[in-house]
């Protein structure tokens, strides 16, 4: 039995197979409509999430399976003081697979150690968000045709943004990927990612403060939101939240075939006017998220569809 804690849990070859399966699901959705008949997905969300939870639920429903769960810690037995380990032991008796989001980093790993069903990390604090990474990889491969030989700019909250951390680790495994980190001083990419992942493998990267300076060189611009819930201090949040706003003027500096991605929800870091630009890929990214979660559920449940 396998779990998914980090995007690196899958080898590059396994990831290719997963993305191939997602491609097939996109092309022939009817083939998979009953692949999970009678199976149940538990969505254990200890903190609010719209997109990820609905994406998991849509994915399981598209496969013919059922869903149940909770969408905040207050509506679960965690409010009574139940541990993550006890909750997952109980849920293992009800469901065939589960997706867990938790504000504490490492909570899904604790669950996976005692679970008798596959556990998917659906986001743990500022640590990992592997299914967003799978979504991002499928989006990039589908829209750019490759995962290597890319220059990717990551912009905004690079310190607390778990989607960024996971994506950097995943893309670092492909040849000739260059990272450009665009952030204010206070929200720079953590040292451990630079030391352990990039420096250790001699992967080229640079850190800049102004988005305009690097825009012409980018194949992908990955925007992120400055997240209120990651700050201990409201003043810091208010001071930094509007640091980077992408608009049509800045988009004029970009390549014709660059794509703009965003894990969503956006607040105001991408002006609404950019939505009409054909390079804006963030809503297509949402759709790819459903396909890749369908592929993941099938893989972890070891369901083969001929």
């Amino acid at each position, binding site marked *: 039995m396998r779990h998914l804690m980090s995007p690196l849990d899958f080898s590059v070859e396994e990831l290719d197979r997963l993305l191939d399966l997602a491609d097939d699901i996109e092309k022939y959705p009817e083939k998979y409509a009953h692949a999970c008949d009678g199976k149940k997905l538990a969505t254990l969300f200890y903190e609010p999430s719209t997109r990820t939870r609905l994406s998991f639920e849509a994915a399981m429903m598209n496969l013919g399976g059922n869903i149940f769960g909770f969408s905040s810690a207050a509506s679960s037995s965690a409010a009574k003081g139940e*541990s*993550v*380990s006890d909750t997952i032991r109980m849920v293992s008796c009800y469901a065939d697979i589960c997706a867990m989001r*938790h*504000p*504490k*980093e*490492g*909570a899904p*790993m*604790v669950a996976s150690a005692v679970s008798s069903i596959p556990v998917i990390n659906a986001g*743990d*604090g*500022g*640590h990992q968000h592997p299914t967003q990474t799978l979504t991002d990889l499928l989006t990039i491969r589908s829209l750019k045709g490759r995962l290597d030989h890319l220059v990717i700019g990551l912009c905004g909250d690079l310190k607390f943004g778990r989607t960024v951390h996971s994506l950097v680790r995943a893309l670092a495994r492909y040849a000739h990927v260059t990272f450009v980190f665009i952030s204010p001083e206070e929200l720079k990419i953590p040292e*451990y990612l630079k*030391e*352990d992942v990039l420096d250790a493998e001699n992967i080229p990267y640079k850190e800049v403060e102004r988005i305009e300076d690097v825009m012409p060189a980018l194949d992908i611009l990955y925007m992120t939101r400055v997240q209120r819930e990651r700050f201990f201090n409201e003043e810091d949040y208010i001071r930094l939240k509007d640091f980077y706003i992408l608009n049509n003027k800045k988009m004029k500096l970009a390549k014709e075939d660059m794509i703009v991605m965003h894990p969503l929800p956006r607040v105001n870091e991408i002006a609404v006017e950019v939505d009409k630009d054909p390079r804006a890929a963030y809503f297509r990214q949402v759709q790819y998220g459903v396909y890749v979660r369908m592929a993941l559920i099938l893989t972890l449940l070891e369901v083969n569809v001929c």
Partner: protein
Amino acid sequence: MLNIGGLSEGFVLDHIEAGRSMEIYQYLNLDKFDCCVAIIKNARSSKMGKKDIIKIECSIDAIDLKALGFIDHNITVNIIKDDHIVEKKRLSLPKEIKNVARCRNPRCITSIEQELDHIFVLTDPQKEIYRCKYCEEKYRRKKK
């Protein structure tokens, strides 16, 4: 030089970096041991200039040497039995340590989950970096 009596059974922890003996005393929970412990600070050393030494009179299976390797792998451990040194042990960095140090990341699951072991994994032997198994936060040693 100050003279401290010999041991019939126990450990002599030698080549401790000068000034770190009390930190090691705390890590090894020696305050909870009901045995004779001698701490020698700033002893003269030809190799180190100054060093600390700890002598512990106890059963030789009473101390977790794996934890000691994590604290300072340059320490030499002399194991004493029947009034003689039976082994001079060089320590190495353990691959994993359990409940020796606590994760200080307030966002880590170890901060709330009941009875969860605090586990650190050696991720970079060259730079001697340990990270929390759960949240990957780097272990930061206490400042002297």
